[in-house]
């Protein structure tokens, strides 16, 4: 307990400083959020047209109204779990400041984790929560729909926390690539697009061909977005819910172990120019 309190005292300032940085550059942040909202609306309109053009009301278990919630909730979820951990590592390797950070008596994993908490807190309070409330309000005043039950929201939040952990660890591992490649920008772009697709952000994974769905079951990406949103929609419940959590926890542990191993390996081959 004492140890925990001590670590909190050491690492919380990192969280605070990220929040301060994000507040300083809030214009850029909110503009990029606005851009994502526009892109979400394109996807929403497309799905809306698909449902008006379809002869059946239910496609792969989704009604038009399910799909609306899915598209906006998956966009909110993706925004909440996203973090810049890979970019931070990449920049520190590029300008060499990582050397100084390795000398300090601070755990690199933990420092980045607490920094990503800053992004999480700021993003949740300023974007995800207001957008979620707007969605709830829109549904209530338009069609009188009530928000999901407390237990569903609770399960969603738990799943979201696992999703965030997986995204953080994946970005950490991805950022370690910068020990091997000098320019990370293009690969990050590539990563972004691919995760967007296979985490189910634009298209619920049940719409994919079976062979692809089966393949994706062996990857962690559905745990980032698809699982939390399906829980929110109450499409995963009962024993399937337990199973979904087990899968998410498995990926958290697996990626944690892998990232520690890779971190040890990568820091051994680190060469900093000059200094």
């Amino acid at each position: 307990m004492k140890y925990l309190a001590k670590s909190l005292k050491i690492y919380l300032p990192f969280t605070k400083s990220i929040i301060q940085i994000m507040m300083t550059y809030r214009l850029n942040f909110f503009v990029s959020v606005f851009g994502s909202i526009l892109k979400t609306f394109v996807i929403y309109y497309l799905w809306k047209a698909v449902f008006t053009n379809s002869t059946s009301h239910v496609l792969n278990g989704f009604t038009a109204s399910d799909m609306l919630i899915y598209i906006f909730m998956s966009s909110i979820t993706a925004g909440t779990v996203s973090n810049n951990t890979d970019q931070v590592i990449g920049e520190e390797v590029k300008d060499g400041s990582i050397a100084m950070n390795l000398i300090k008596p601070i755990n690199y994993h933990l420092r980045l984790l607490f920094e990503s908490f800053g992004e999480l807190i700021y993003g949740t309070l300023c974007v995800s929560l207001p957008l979620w409330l707007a969605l709830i309000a829109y549904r209530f005043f338009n069609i009188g729909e009530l928000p999901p039950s407390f237990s569903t929201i609770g399960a969603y939040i738990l799943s979201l926390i696992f999703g965030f952990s997986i995204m953080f660890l994946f970005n950490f591992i991805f950022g370690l690539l910068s020990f091997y490649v000098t320019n990370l920008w293009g690969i990050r772009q590539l990563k972004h697009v691919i995760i967007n697709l296979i985490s189910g952000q634009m298209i619920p994974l049940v719409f994919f061909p079976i062979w692809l769905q089966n393949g994706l079951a062996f990857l962690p990406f559905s745990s980032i977005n698809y699982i939390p949103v399906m829980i929110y929609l109450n499409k995963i419940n009962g024993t399937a819910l337990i199973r979904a959590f087990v899968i998410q926890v498995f990926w958290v542990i697996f990626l944690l172990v892998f990232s520690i191993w890779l971190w040890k390996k990568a820091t051994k081959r680190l060469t900093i120019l000059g200094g």
Partner: protein
Amino acid sequence: MLKKYVKLYVKFVAQYLKVLMEYRLDFFIGLLGFLVTQGVGIIFIFIIFEQIPSLNGWSFNEILFIYAFSQLPRGLDHLLTDNLWLLSGRIIARGEFDKYLLKPINPLFHLLAERFQPDAIGELIVGVMLIVYSTINIGMSFSFLDILLLLLMIICGAVIYTSIKLFFASLAFWIKNSQSILWVNYSLSDFSKYPISIYGKTVRLIITLVIPFAFTAYFPAAYFVHKEGIYVAIGGTVLASILTFSVAYYTWCKGISVYESAGN
């Protein structure tokens, strides 16, 4: 006069390609990035058409045709005018704009020629391949005149892209950094890849009359698959490109006249 500019442009591009050869891997990663982005867009269309035979009267291949067409003006603009992003972001803010005013060439030409973005070749390749693929599947036949018209439409579309970028980038002359504003408006181009009948009224109004991205893809492409008449589609596109360029160029000139260097 024109000859001088062409010669200069070739020199500028040659310089830039030298830089690029230094960072070959980055170039290929960038190219791959655009190819995959387009690939994902196509997978999306493909999955949608697993569910329905046609989207508001458009077949799979017709949708693919608009999507493909949208890549060409976008790619062409991206290839040639990428420096506008830097104008909006840092050239004015850091007072680096002085150098464009000191040369005996048109400052806009100098700015655009300075940077060449070959990543865009990814967009162009995908666009051309998909246009060929979709036209064969639709069974469209192009006369020589149609091909000329297609090229004209691609150029007009690119001019609209460039003008919209130039307009919002020029705002930096007043507000120093307009990159975020530019980015949001540029994001609206996403709406032009699909038939505009799927959107609500407000969105349609914005992308046709305010920030006319609909003329960079939807309208010209709809003409070729006989979904829009010649006056609206072709006439509208030409008119939109002339109007947007006039507004943008006027704003740019006004901007230069209020430009004050960072000074020290």
